[in-house]
């Protein structure tokens, strides 16, 4: 058990190293940050001096070595764009992203699981067909388009909701929240729906598929033969067994929502980490880009670990194999 956990952690460390290298390699290939930092009026000599100061005149290996050294000492560097330590910058933007992806996750679970169950049980009904058709759209229409359509409908035409931004926020210690103000909640609605649509459709279809599989398996047929009520068959014997893959995918979706809300945050000018990341890419803000990608990797490694642990609770078969090894 503990050995298994340790192996997992070591694997996670390996992933982090690879991601770190890739993140750094990619961010140094985005162009020249110096021109963005100094502006039009800088002379050639001033540009050279800045390049030396940033260490950009060094070979790649030296630059990566320095970067790795800094990260291991817990220093993520200072943003080229804003002159703020990257750690602070990410901490400032974290609440907005967490609230957005948290709300999107909530929508995904609250709507995705029941709708999945419904479409599995009432397979032939008209409503099921409509839901499944809509879910196909949710999977295939790109996020920026959904976002713009929602803005057009609810902000421009109906003028019910604000088109962008986070509204008024309240500070609670280092955390800022928009959940406690009316304008904050109203602002959260459109972006969280936009962000949730894909994962909602995915989860819905997954729940349906898994449940259908299970409902066709022997133990369900046997339960029916025993004359158990449909309700018990669906929820006690069916759903429980269908949930395992659903938990994995839902958890990974949480990682996706958190790390890759870039498009949604840009469309809605949501001041979270995704918007920060996009601005960093445009500016070639290397410290922010590499730290953000590293952070995303940490999030995924941790989520995977939690998922693995949850299997122990959910599935007795897993428990027994881990116990034996």
């Amino acid at each position, binding site marked *: 058990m503990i050995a298994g956990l340790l192996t997992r952690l070591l694997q996670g460390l390996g992933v982090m190293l690879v991601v770190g290298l890739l993140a750094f390699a990619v961010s140094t290939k*985005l*162009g*020249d*940050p*110096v*021109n*963005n*930092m*100094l*502006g*039009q*009026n*800088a*002379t*050639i000599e*001033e*540009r050279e001096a*800045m*390049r030396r*100061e*940033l260490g950009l005149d060094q070979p790649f290996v030296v630059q990566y070595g320095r970067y790795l050294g800094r990260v291991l000492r817990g220093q993520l*560097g*200072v943003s*080229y*764009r*804003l*002159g*703020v*330590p990257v750690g602070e910058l990410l901490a400032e933007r974290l609440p907005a992203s967490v609230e957005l992806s948290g709300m999107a996750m909530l929508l995904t679970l609250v709507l995705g699981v029941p709708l999945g169950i419904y479409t599995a049980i009432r397979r032939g009904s008209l409503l099921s067909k409509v839901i499944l058709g809509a879910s196909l759209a949710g999977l295939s229409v790109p996020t*920026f388009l959904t976002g*713009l359509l929602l*803005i*057009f409908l609810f*902000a*421009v035409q109906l*003028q019910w909701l*604000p*088109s*962008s*931004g*986070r509204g008024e926020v309240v500070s609670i210690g280092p955390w800022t929240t928009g959940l406690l103000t009316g304008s904050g909640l109203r602002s959260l609605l459109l972006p969280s729906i936009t962000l949730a649509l894909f994962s909602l459709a995915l989860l819905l279809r997954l729940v349906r598929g898994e449940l259908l599989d299970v409902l066709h398996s022997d133990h369900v047929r046997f339960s029916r033969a025993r004359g158990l009520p449909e309700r018990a068959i669906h929820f006690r014997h069916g759903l429980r067994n269908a949930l395992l893959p659903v938990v994995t995918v839902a958890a990974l979706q949480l990682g996706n929502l958190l790390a890759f809300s870039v498009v949604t945050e*840009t*469309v*809605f*000018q949501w*001041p979270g980490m995704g*918007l*920060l990341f*996009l*601005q960093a890419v*445009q*500016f*070639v803000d290397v410290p922010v880009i590499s730290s953000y990608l590293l952070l995303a990797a940490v999030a995924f490694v941790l989520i995977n670990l939690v998922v693995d642990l949850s299997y122990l609770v959910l599935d007795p078969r897993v428990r027994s194999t881990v116990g034996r090894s």
Partner: protein
Amino acid sequence: MRRLAGLVLLGALLAVGSAAAQTFRYASTGDLLTLDPHSADEALSNSFKNNVHEGLVRFNEKLEPEPALAVSWKNVDPVTWRFQLRREVTFHDGTPFTADDVVFSYNRQRSKNSVMASHVATIKSVRKIDDYTIEYVTVGPDPILLRNLTEHFIVSKKWCEQHATTEPVAGLKEETYATRHENGTGPFQVVERLPDTRTVLVPYPKWWDLPNKKYAITRAEFRPIANAATRLAALISGELELAYPVAPQDVARVEGQKGFRVIKKPELRVVYLGMDQWRDESLDMPGSKKNPFKDVRVRRALYQAIDVEAIRAKVMRGMAAPTGLTIPEGTEGYDAKLRERYPYDPAASRKLLAEAGYPDGFPVTFDCPNDRYINDEAICQSLVPMLARVGVKATLNSQTKSKHFDKILRKSNNNTSLFLLGFSPETADAMATFVPTMTMKGEGAGAWNAGRYSNPKVEELVDQIRVEMNQEKRRALMSEVLRIHKEDFGHLPLHEQLIIWGVRDGVEVTPDARDRVQLRFVKMRQ
């Protein structure tokens, strides 16, 4: 009596009306990087500075210098300028403004970590004569000192010392107190600053120019909205008074919307093509020992192959002003007589290419940015077939501005043969274009001269212009530079792009030709 009562009532109503909040909300593509006027030299940050900070001199609406924190000045000798400072000016925290602040600001702006040093680079020293008199000594006679002083921002010595921000920050330094706080003397003061979310300003009640104020707003909110469609939606849904820039393809959408209009004005920027005139062998023709662009006939052939009218009408949807000059109208030194373009004439192009020894044309890589100027990539795409028509096989290489500038500028040894660039002389003086883009010798030369155009005659003239104090003579010299450069086909100008602002009715605002919103010129009707 009743009439009088009516007037009083009306007066009271008007007073109430003008006291009611007039909040001017506006949005652009990004946020300012810092409130510190000496720590960023970037379009949006620059466009914001004049709202809270001032120099001894400022630009009026036509970009002509006028007194600001100085009331008058005179030349004691050709290199010594004596400025009388304005009395009774206070910084936003109430501290009085004196000569010490000017000396301090000069040193701060030219210090090692300042990115705004270029605007005070010609000033050798500063001397306080008394509390309200200072002297600047320039390196040589300096005809553009006053224009540069509009970008020489005065900060409070006491405040900076109190908050340990006596030096600006650039590069790997961490932010200081001045990054998120300001203490200028300008017409507006910042009351809230949430980076990447919003910046809120209110009029400074003790501004020295309040009796002549031209603004009529009680509050301003600036928001960055990166996505063009979202920005437009925010305007049309009534969340903004001004959104800029509006993409040319969205102009009809705004104009068709009741209660909104579009303001257009040529920007102080010319979009043009540059060619490598330095290498003996073109990067795209290895082994040939030839660089076609060294031959003026080839450069002229490319020029006459470009149907600039088609670009204006189709790619830019009319939102461009074609020009034959690389400096825009409104710049000191601009010569309207030279604006006319050589005619579009593909037949003449082909003939010129044949004469130059390229009857079948030649291959060239065409470097182009795709996120810097209005429709930049589309302009380049439309140029490729135009060049192909006369035999020049251009391979388009369009990429983000960070990669584009990385490739064409000196860092990569000007690794380009043909490129698109849009250049703005920010001080509205032609020298701001001549020196970095049309010369290779001397202070500050060549930083943006990616094709390394150099003509000894131009270099000589530019050296003369640098120190020529007689305005008429100076203009004549500048015209001469423009004429030579035009006949050299040193660059191939296309157009001045238009500033396009979407505005809600009832808001009066004049764009600064540098695409800056000057809050002191914004009026809102009740």
